[in-house]
């Protein structure tokens, strides 16, 4: 019978943390986003997502076109009243934990639209975590909003479902 030697712990680097912090760290750097793109802000979203600004540096470079597989709902562009029930259904289909980013001033407040067709801010339909105003917002603006979202994900109470 050979002897089982104790593992040499010195060769491992160890770090202690709290479970909530570790989960928050993992969640904030693995954002699977659902781009709900309806209008011109989509161009700026693409500019942010592509190589020059490279949203993948923040771990959010992977768009999932299924709400069931995504964490963050990017609402990009004007939402009309006809579109509103669809947006609500997409939001309801997403699994917890989930966050919503209002991208562009139309989604924040309705923007310069004040008419029979446009929803005056998506927060009248679904809860919003980060507002990124601008018509459209610059990519730097979007990345700033994304970092604010990461900060929120890191510091919030982590529900383990």
């Amino acid at each position: 019978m050979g002897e089982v030697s104790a593992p040499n712990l010195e060769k491992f680097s160890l770090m202690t943390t709290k479970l909530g912090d570790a989960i928050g760290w993992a969640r904030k750097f693995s954002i699977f986003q659902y781009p709900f793109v309806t209008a011109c802000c989509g161009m700026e979203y693409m500019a942010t997502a592509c190589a020059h600004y490279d949203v993948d540096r923040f771990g959010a470079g992977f768009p999932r076109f299924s709400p069931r597989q995504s964490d963050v709902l990017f609402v990009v562009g004007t939402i009309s009243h006809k579109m509103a029930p669809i947006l609500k259904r997409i939001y309801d289909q997403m699994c917890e934990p989930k966050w919503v980013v209002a991208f562009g001033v139309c989604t924040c407040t309705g923007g310069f639209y004040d008419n029979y067709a446009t929803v005056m801010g998506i927060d009248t339909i679904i809860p919003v975590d980060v507002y990124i105003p601008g018509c459209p917002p610059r990519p730097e603006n979007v990345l700033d909003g994304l970092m604010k979202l990461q900060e929120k994900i890191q510091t919030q109470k982590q529900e383990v479902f």
Partner: protein
Amino acid sequence: MMDQQGDPLVYIKREAVSKVLKALKEDAGLSFDVLMDLFAVDYLHWEEKADRFEIIYNLFSSTKLHRLFVKVAVPEREPSLDSVASVWPAADWFEREVWDMFGVSFKGHPNLKRILMYEEFKGHALRKDYLYNKRQPLIGPMN
């Protein structure tokens, strides 16, 4: 015969719409084979207009390369006229848009229902007496 920024413009009677427009398309000398546009104007509160609505047909001939504007006055008490969807298939969606936005109906249209707004929408959004900021959301708060 009048002039619409260099192109001829004619007014015709509402009863004659389908007959005249069909003739404009089929006449060999005119051959207006393209319906470029079809839209409506709401002349509410205009003293000089006897009838509230005007439907405007923008015709073009791809062989003769000439244009013609045809206007039809439509009264408020009976906002309807003949459809030309059987003459130009392009008129199908244009007429649905005019129905959706102005509430002018087209007799003989194959599928006259709203095209831009949702079916639950009450009224017609581009009528001058529809308040521009009146909202009828499907979900969410009213205003």
